[in-house]
């Protein structure tokens, strides 16, 4: 449609240009004809003033001949021009005709092409239609198949859901049972914990008390054991001494026992003595100690002060801390320890 419009415009323009060309040809032809007409009289006037009487007739004849000739020539020329114009008009008419024919021809061809195209289009549409139908058919088949499948799946799913639901119910029941069981266990655990904590606290307290009691007891026991060991050792020595009684004097026997106990007591007191840091060389404190039969201190008196009160007191404290002392069972040896002395020296 568009194409034919453009073609029409082109064709129209073509005709217009042709017409313009023809008209201009006309105009030009007219102009070239008028020019010589205007020039001739001017020449005649100038010439006339210069010509003599005698020659006028001859000149007039010549002039008439010349004019005749010129008229003929003019007629010829005009005929030729008319002839040419006629030809040109004819040519133009012919060209116009040709153009119209061409136009007509093109139109027909166009129509034909359109017809063919339409036919082709129809054919394609038809084929397309067929394909679509075929497609739809296929799709339908597919849909049917899918629907069937879905139905099948759905059924399967429902079955599974049902199964799951059943399982869930079972699970929930189990969970509930488990929860219940756990709660019970927690409660029991909590109770147990509580009672354990209480128990632990009690135990800790008990242990602490026990530990303290044990510590004290252990200390006592240690003292006791030491004493016992010392006693045992002393007894052994005593026995030895007794065995040697026949060979040795009673005094020497007792002296040996006493020596042993002195050494035991010395070690013990030294251990308990915290020597003051300001205890300088050369200090000495002598303490007189009287003991009770069990070995406990009855009285401590300073018989020779070190002149350093701190030193004296540290010695006293050491004696008190070391008590009770282990004493020999032998009455004669033990008698020596009822009332005896300590001599404290820093080194």
């Amino acid at each position, binding site marked *: 449609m568009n194409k034919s419009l453009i073609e029409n415009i082109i064709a129209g323009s073509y005709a217009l240009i042709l017409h313009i060309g023809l008209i201009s040809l006309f105009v030009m032809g007219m102009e070239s004809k008028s020019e010589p007409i205007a020039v001739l009289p001017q020449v005649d006037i100038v010439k006339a003033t210069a010509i003599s009487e005698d020659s006028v007739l001859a000149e007039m004849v010549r002039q008439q001949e010349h004019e005749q000739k010129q008229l003929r020539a003019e007629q010829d020329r005009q005929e030729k021009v008319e002839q040419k114009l006629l030809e040109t008009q004819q040519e133009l008419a012919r060209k116009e005709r040709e153009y119209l024919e061409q136009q007509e021809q093109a139109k027909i061809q166009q129509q034909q092409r359109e017809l063919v195209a339409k036919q082709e289009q129809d054919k394609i549409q038809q084929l397309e239609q067929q394909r679509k139908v075929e497609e739809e058919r296929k799709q339908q088949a597919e849909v049917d198949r899918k629907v069937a499948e879905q139905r099948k799946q759905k059924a399967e799913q429902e079955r599974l859901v049902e199964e799951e639901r059943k399982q869930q119910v079972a699970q929930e029941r189990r969970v509930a049972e488990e929860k219940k069981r756990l709660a019970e266990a927690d409660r029991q655990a909590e109770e147990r914990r509580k009672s354990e904590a209480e128990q632990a606290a009690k135990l800790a307290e008990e242990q602490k008390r026990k530990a303290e009691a044990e510590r*004290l007891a252990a200390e006592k026991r240690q003292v006791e054991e030491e004493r016992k060991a010392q006693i045992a050792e002393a007894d052994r020595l005593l026995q030895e001494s007794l065995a040697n009684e026949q060979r040795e004097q009673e005094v020497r026997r007792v002296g040996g026992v*006493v020596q042993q106990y*002195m050494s035991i*007591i*010395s070690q013990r*007191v*030294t*251990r308990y*003595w*915290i*020597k*003051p*840091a*300001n205890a300088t060389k050369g200090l000495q404190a*002598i303490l*007189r100690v009287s003991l009770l039969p069990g070995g406990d201190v009855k009285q401590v008196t300073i*018989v*020779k002060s070190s002149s*350093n*009160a*701190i*030193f004296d*007191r*540290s*010695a*006293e*404290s*050491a004696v*008190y*801390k070391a008590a009770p002392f282990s004493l020999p069972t032998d009455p004669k040896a033990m008698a*020596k*320890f009822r*009332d*005896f*002395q*300590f*001599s*404290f*020296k*820093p*080194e």
Partner: protein
Amino acid sequence: MIKSWLMALSLLITLLPWQAHALLTIEITGGSEAALPIAVVPFGNEGFAAPEDISEVIRNDLASSGRFAPLPKGDLISSPHDKSEINFKDWRLLRSEGLLVGKVSSVDGETYQVQFQLFDVYKSQQLIGKRYQVPASGLRRLAHQISDLIYQTLTGEVGVFSTRLAFVSVVNTPAGQKRYALQVSDADGANPRSVLQSKQPILSPSWSPDGERLSYVSFENGKAEVFVQEMRSGRRDSVAAFKGLNSAPSWSPDGKKLALTLSKAGNPEIYVLELASGKLSRVTHNSQAIDTEAVWMPNGRELLFTSDRGGRPQIYKVSADGGRASRVTFEGRYNASADISADGRFMTMVHGLNGKYYIAVQDLDSGAVQVLTETGQDESPSFAPNSRNILYATEQNGKGILAAVSVDGRIHQRLGESGSDVREPAWSPIRK
């Protein structure tokens, strides 16, 4: 006639021990050097609550000395506040030699009645018992005084809990400048107060023997100059502002002279300045070496000082009248900043080992050296007036702090909770 009587009497007296010797005598020598167990029972409180926990201050004082082992509070079997409430047998079981009880009461919250008693547990005997009346502000100081009394009663040595520490603190201002302050605190580092503030460095504080004056170096005039400041009035005098260095002041034991380092002759030398007359006498004459950090021996006749005359800084001894110096330190490549214990037995110094600096102590009789600290950035050691502890400056997290160590190296202690950078500590003499 009288003479012969006296003779006879003295003979009798000398014979008496002989009589005693007839008794069996057991010799005890040695003994242990353990800390003395003592029970400090929290003081009772009546009326207004005291702003200071006196018994706790005492407990901390005693424990910090290393000479006492206060029983753990959980071990205290009862809480008596006076003698009638004490069952000595119980306390003997704990093997505690001393037992301290007391109470604090106030009817107005301003004045407090404080009483305490110290007992010998084994003899069931009171060793000290005192009652005081102090304003609330005096409670802490009283606690330190009680600690001193207990310490002295049980060890026979002077307590130093109510002495003071002087040191220099440095604070960076928001403007990026430094503010120096000479501060004085309690012996445990608590309760610090400024006695001098400056934009310029302050260093080397030194206490006069009576504890009434401080001498120090201040850069307030653009260079090191020595000042003396009275503690009570705050009055201060420039005592050395010669050309060159004026530094390292140290009071003579009689409090009349200052040993100083001056470089007015072109090189740091030791001088002695008589404070009353202003008379200056030069002690060292080694123009090639640095001689500085003089300290007086307790005899007041000799000085110890640091010198690099041997190539490296070492401690030397010289008569305060001048003369030939003798080298004192031989261990290690670097020994400086000496201080001497009041009993004259020990010298403490900064001891350099592999580029690190430790506090060491040297037995002046035997020459034996013991390194006491471990951090490696320790300086300015200063003996406690009882010769038992050494105060020094060290660093923690890039900040200067004060610490103390016992002469035997067994007790280490950090002093004060100051947020600022502190350094240059000096332990005051006993407060008279």
